[in-house]
């Protein structure tokens, strides 16, 4: 048995949601009977709904809040949420202006969100969908629609939330969110597997001195398995692929996000980020912002991913807009305003 602090495996998701909710009950509401969470103070705007399997915390539930998602549909560990969960969440957040689904591009998620969209159509709730497919290692460019979604979710959700807060209509919010998804590129590396709570065995093996470049967050095979190497050398190799795939050129402007997969420490991520900064500067790619965190994890998986988000003026403004959710805060000034009152 793999050591995990749980009670019964079958209660992992419901107990985790319970624990999350008691800490965030001032801002969020749990929907009864389904594993869905929504914002308490919904605004009269296009609603943003995200979701996916559990096990990747703080994604997705930690990103429900101002300037981000209005609701989240939560699945079992590494399994997409059910259509009725998504349906209930969408119904609860819809203000008559439509709902935008933003989620990672996995077969299960697509099937369940599509089915929910059909159910909502019967109730005259309009939906649009933007799938995040940022993992450049998961499929070549000519099969871009097959690429999986990883840490780039964060950039795309950020833009969707900010666009909706502007009061734009569903089509406009969807279009700019799709643009953000099209300009988000990520690549990862794994050093050790993450496990399903309650599982007796690890889902795959990596040798003590081995890493796998391009491995997916559920252990999907990557580009190549190789011996462990110094952080700078590894970062160079990953970034070279990433810059090539994204066709970034000198003069382009990017937001950078270095994401830990679970057990890789901030100390290590800082060292990676230092090299990312050096390489991009050498390539004369302008860095607008850098974020180092572990938003998209796979339990105790070791490794990290680098995401580059190619900005333009419109995206920059939306990226800078204030946001506040339990696990993501940006340029948020509401609290200080409240303090003055």
């Amino acid at each position, binding site marked *: 048995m793999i050591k995990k602090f749980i009670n019964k495996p079958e209660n992992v998701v419901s107990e985790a949601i319970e624990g999350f909710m008691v800490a965030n009950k001032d801002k969020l509401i749990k929907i009864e009977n389904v594993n869905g969470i929504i914002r308490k103070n919904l605004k009269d705007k296009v609603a943003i709904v995200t979701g996916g*399997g559990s096990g990747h915390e703080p994604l997705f539930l930690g990103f429900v809040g101002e300037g981000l998602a209005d609701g989240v549909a939560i*699945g*079992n560990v*590494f*399994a*997409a*949420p*059910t*259509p*009725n*969960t998504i349906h209930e969440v969408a119904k609860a957040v819809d203000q008559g202006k439509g709902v935008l689904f933003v989620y990672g591009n996995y*077969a*299960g998620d697509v*099937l*369940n969100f*599509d*089915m929910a969209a059909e159910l909502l159509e019967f109730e005259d709730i309009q939906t649009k969908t933007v799938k995040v497919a940022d993992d450049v290692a*998961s499929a070549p460019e000519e099969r871009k629609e097959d690429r999986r979604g990883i840490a780039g979710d964060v950039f795309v959700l950020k833009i969707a939330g900010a666009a909706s807060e502007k009061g734009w209509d569903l089509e406009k919010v969807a279009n700019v969110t799709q643009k953000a998804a099209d300009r988000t590129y990520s690549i990862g590396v794994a050093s050790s597997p993450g496990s*399903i709570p309650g*599982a007796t065995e690890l*889902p795959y093996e990596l040798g003590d001195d081995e890493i796998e470049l391009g491995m*997916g967050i*559920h252990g*999907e*095979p990557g580009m190549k398995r190789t011996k462990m190497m110094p952080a700078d050398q590894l970062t160079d190799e990953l970034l070279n692929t990433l810059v090539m795939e994204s066709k970034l050129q000198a003069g382009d402007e990017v937001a950078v996000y270095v994401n830990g997969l679970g057990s890789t420490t901030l100390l290590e991520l800082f060292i990676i980020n230092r090299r990312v900064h050096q390489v991009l500067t050498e390539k004369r790619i302008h860095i607008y912002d850098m974020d180092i965190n572990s938003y998209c994890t796979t339990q105790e998986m070791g490794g990290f991913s680098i995401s580059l988000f190619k900005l333009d003026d419109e995206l920059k403004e939306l990226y800078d807009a204030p946001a506040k959710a339990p696990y993501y805060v940006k340029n948020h000034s509401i609290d200080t305003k409240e303090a003055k009152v």
Partner: protein
Amino acid sequence: MAIRAMNSLTPNQVRDMFLYVGQKVVENKPFLTKIDSAIGDGDHGIGMSVGFTKAEENLKGKEFSNVNDVFKTVGMSMISSMGGASGVIFGTMFVGGVKKLEMKETLDLQLLAEIFEGALEAIKQRGKAEVRDKTMVDALQPAVYALKESVEKNFSLVEGLRKAEEGAHQGVENTKNYVAKFGRAKSLGERSLGHQDAGATTVWIIFKSMREWVEEGLQDD
């Protein structure tokens, strides 16, 4: 008389048949888990057992006046409880065929063929999978063809189900020769060769158990 009686099932008999099918699928949880762990993420058996347990909850002790509602109850139980890709796909296997069907009070071989033919179309449309993609379609399609052929040949319900079971089983064997195009096995490419698909295996178990129930029902009479 007994044989003729079992050539068509009442809605409550269809309910009992699916309760038996569910029991068999749940019994096969370890087997399905083992198959899925080889090339998938190992959760297929768990998912199917969640779905059929929910179906049992919603079927048991309930009186049904038409066949459509029994299929719908099984399918919606799966869709609402399982999640992942198989929740929608196996849910559609039961819901997809009765969606546009007028209310039927008996299930005979012809209607069964019609329902699963509709289901196959709905699944292909939703999942975008075709035969040779190493999915449950590889078992469902030959089963549906066998049902249709059996109708043309005026076979009994049991004979038709046996043909469907055989078709599904051949389909499962065929999946060993295919490279996965969907799900997590897809990224394994050639490495998925030699392994049978878990979803196809479940389809075979479903038809096999339907045949067993109808056959045993005959003997009971």
